[in-house]
């Protein structure tokens, strides 16, 4: 807004901080009469964090079938070498068939501790190779169904909703709510900037109201009822944001060493939420950039760096939350599809079909690679070009909900039109 200088003369310079000044000096605390009641810590609750690698991450460069006789042929420039070659391209051995990309040191260490379950040839039965559609289908848990708009995680939250749900039960730390979290259940989305400024500015306009003695609740006047609803939602938002911000700001600094990426920042904050024991249960994070058509660079290039980031972050995360909470936490890493088995003419790969997932947490059944493997010979590939999908991603989703929350997503029909005739993988030691 343009103000004349005479205006400015008698305008105090307190400006923006006028109302927030008190709050700014004392951190995030607010006046006692309006401060939301401090909630008592709840018991450690199970937590699932879905990490979505957007773009179609190359399964073959992450969970590497280095003993397959066709591997070197299909990936002339991108192939990684066996563990014994002792080079920068050497995979980290998982079992007789597979090794991790060399940038996944921390995940490999977790694998050896039995806390990381790699899953191969997993994905969607739908044949789309469109990012847009494939991501939607996976995040909604409804391949091929265009008119489902709710996310699979949101449906779980809504299904198990109670009136006593913790404020921080479902949280997203990125401004655009991931699709898996969208739906009827109100997930707290922390906006990018200045949530504190907004909170401090508006909290007195949205008081937590209880009726005073003698005051009748509004009956016929819908306007008053609507007003009350709006105030309640605003108050709830502020209460939740206040709790979220105070947990994040007052949490002790973690001793684990995280990378400096945006992904790492989010995971570090989620670790704080877990350690605060406030009933945090579900979150989802987007990690973009995996669409490596050109110069995939699985060792020293783009993909190698990103895998390194994911690995180092998850390693720090598990260390950060400690062994006790690691038992009740699961990070599920996924992507909309894998990539072509053959590399293309640009040292990259194109959109494929079957892909990979990683399950990281203390409850994981360790020391093996999950999912059926039928090799890289052309007759075994999907449409002669891609990894096949031997495991429907909904199997993994359902096992996650069952193993971590005791929630039977199949029986309770969480996945629309899913017949679920395949056996579980058992990566959480749950059949």
């Amino acid at each position: 807004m343009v103000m004349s200088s005479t205006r400015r003369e008698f305008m105090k310079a307190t400006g923006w901080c006028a109302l927030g000044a008190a709050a700014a000096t004392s951190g995030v605390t607010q006046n006692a009469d309006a401060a939301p009641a401090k909630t008592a810590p709840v018991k450690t609750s199970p937590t699932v964090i879905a990490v979505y690698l957007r773009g179609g991450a190359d399964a073959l460069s992450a969970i590497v079938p280095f003993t397959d006789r066709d591997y070197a042929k299909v990936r002339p420039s991108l192939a990684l070498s066996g563990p014994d070659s002792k080079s920068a391209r050497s995979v980290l051995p998982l079992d007789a068939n597979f090794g991790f990309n060399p940038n996944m040191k921390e995940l490999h260490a977790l694998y050896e501790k039995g806390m990381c379950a790699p899953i191969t040839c997993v994905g969607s039965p739908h044949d789309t190779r469109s990012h847009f559609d494939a991501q939607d289908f996976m995040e909604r848990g409804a391949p091929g169904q265009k008119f489902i708009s709710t996310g699979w995680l949101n449906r779980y939250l809504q299904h198990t909703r109670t009136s006593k749900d913790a404020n921080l039960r479902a949280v997203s730390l990125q401004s655009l709510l991931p699709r898996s979290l969208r739906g009827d259940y109100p997930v707290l989305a922390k906006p990018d900037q200045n949530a504190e400024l907004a909170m401090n500015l508006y909290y007195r306009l949205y008081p937590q109201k209880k009726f005073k003695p003698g005051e009748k609740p509004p009956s016929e006047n819908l306007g008053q009822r609507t007003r009350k609803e709006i105030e309640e939602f605003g108050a709830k938002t502020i209460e939740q944001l206040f709790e979220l911000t105070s947990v994040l700001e007052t949490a002790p600094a973690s001793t684990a060493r995280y990378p400096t990426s945006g992904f790492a920042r989010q995971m570090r904050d989620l670790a704080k939420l877990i350690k605060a024991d406030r009933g945090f249960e579900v979150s989802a994070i987007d990690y973009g950039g995996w669409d490596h058509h050109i110069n995939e660079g699985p060792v020293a290039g783009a993909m190698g760096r990103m895998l390194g980031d994911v690995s180092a972050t998850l390693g720090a995360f598990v260390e950060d939350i400690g062994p006790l909470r690691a038992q009740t936490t699961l990070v599920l890493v996924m992507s909309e599809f894998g990539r072509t088995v053959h590399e293309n003419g640009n040292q990259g790969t194109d959109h494929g079909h079957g892909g990979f997932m990683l399950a990281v947490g203390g409850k994981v059944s360790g020391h093996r690679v999950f999912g059926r493997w039928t090799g890289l010979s052309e007759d075994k590939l999907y449409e002669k070009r891609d990894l096949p999908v031997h495991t429907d991603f909904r199997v993994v989703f359902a096992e996650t909900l069952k193993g971590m929350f005791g929630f039977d997503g199949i029986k309770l029909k969480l996945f629309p039109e899913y017949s679920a005739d395949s056996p579980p993988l058992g990566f959480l030691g749950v059949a």
Partner: protein
Amino acid sequence: MRNCLSGFLRIALAGVVVGVFSPSRAQPPDLQRRLTPQESASQVLNRLAFGPRPGQLTEVSDKGWQKWVAEQLQPQTIADVDLEKRLATHCPSLSKNLDEVRAMESSETERGRIKRELIDAVILRAVYSQRQFQEVIAEFWRNHFNVDVNKVPALAMHYEENVLRKHAFGKFEDLLLATAKHPAMLVYLDNYVSKAGGLNENYARELMELHTLGVDNGYTQRDVIDLARVLTGWTCGARARGRSARGQEFGFFFNEAAHDTNPATVVGLQLDGFGGMADGEKAIRHLARLRGTAEFISTKLCRYLVSDAPTKALVGRIADVFQKSGGDLREVYKAIIFSLEFTHSRNYRSKFKTPFEFMVSVLRATDSDITSTQRIVREMAIMGQPIYECVEPTGYSDAAEAWLDPGVLVFRWNFAIQLVQDKVSGVKAGPAFLNPLLKTSPGNLTHKVRSMILPGISEPATEKMMAQTSDPRVMVALVLGSPSFQQQ
């Protein structure tokens, strides 16, 4: 000369005094009564327009709200010069025909461009049009007859111009038939590939479930299949031009070879199967004229304009008007607006603004000049209502329960804060809003700010908060983010 301003202030102060004596907060005591003329003007500007522009409540009050409504019901009589200038600059593709629009679908940049122009047109019209009710009702039909711009990027623009906007004040069955024949709808709901022996039921089902009767309201699965068969051959593509012109053009055409010629029964209407395209038209008009359709459309319109839960009595009366007038939408709108319920205290400020309604009302209240819509479009996505990008054929809901979410308000608050700090690039508050504030003495600022953004609405609690700062920007942000501004 009548002193409008003091009259306005007097009324506002009276509202404050009443508020002080009542046990509940800002609103007058709960009475079953008709709204005062000024409250009616406010109701009209919030329900039949996207919120008042500075000074507009006074204008409408002075004119008389009924007279304003009568004008708005004849939008073609209202000049719209400023808007037309903006549209000419930002949205040159609006006048393109189907051929031209179709040509744009083949290039990715062109598709992106026309999509952007369509979304811009929606925003600019809602903010700047003098024909406000036309824009409000266009938004209703846009959702009722939803298409997803990402599925039909160029076709959607032609659809908006030549179907929704063209028929919004005509007969419902004409509007319905126009949607059924437009390539945007034929592609969006897959009817263009439906043929005898390879039936696609999608459109037939939505035609009954969403566009006419409503879910399970008098039709069966058998009707869906039969209607789908009647509509086989309804497709789009290259067709011969009219008699006077040569060559081909793109558009709707009836592919006889794909049409199912077996008899069909659609909700009681029996067709022998040999009527060709006319059978489809018969079936569509038949559905449009059913009582169930009159009730469903009336319910949705009453929900949009009057209350999230309109009474059966009101819906019944409006459905009567719908049927008696042969589905004349202007008559239906008139009946709703001049009903007892529309200007009744029970329904006053009883709705919650959708993200789009919030955004547009902010821009109108602050007389904002939009030089770029980029931030606005982004905000709509963040708030969960990306324009023309609703994937589901249900379109965006208008009810509070769809939008009242704890997170929802934070994005509105943040937007208000950014706006007053001039941090929303491409958007700047304008002189009709700023100048009166600049002329106000510091002691009167809180009241002035509130009365400019929420004219005629008493808000003592908000004004008390505002009095704790001397910065008008903070005051404006407070009002824009206040509970009252979210009410409609």
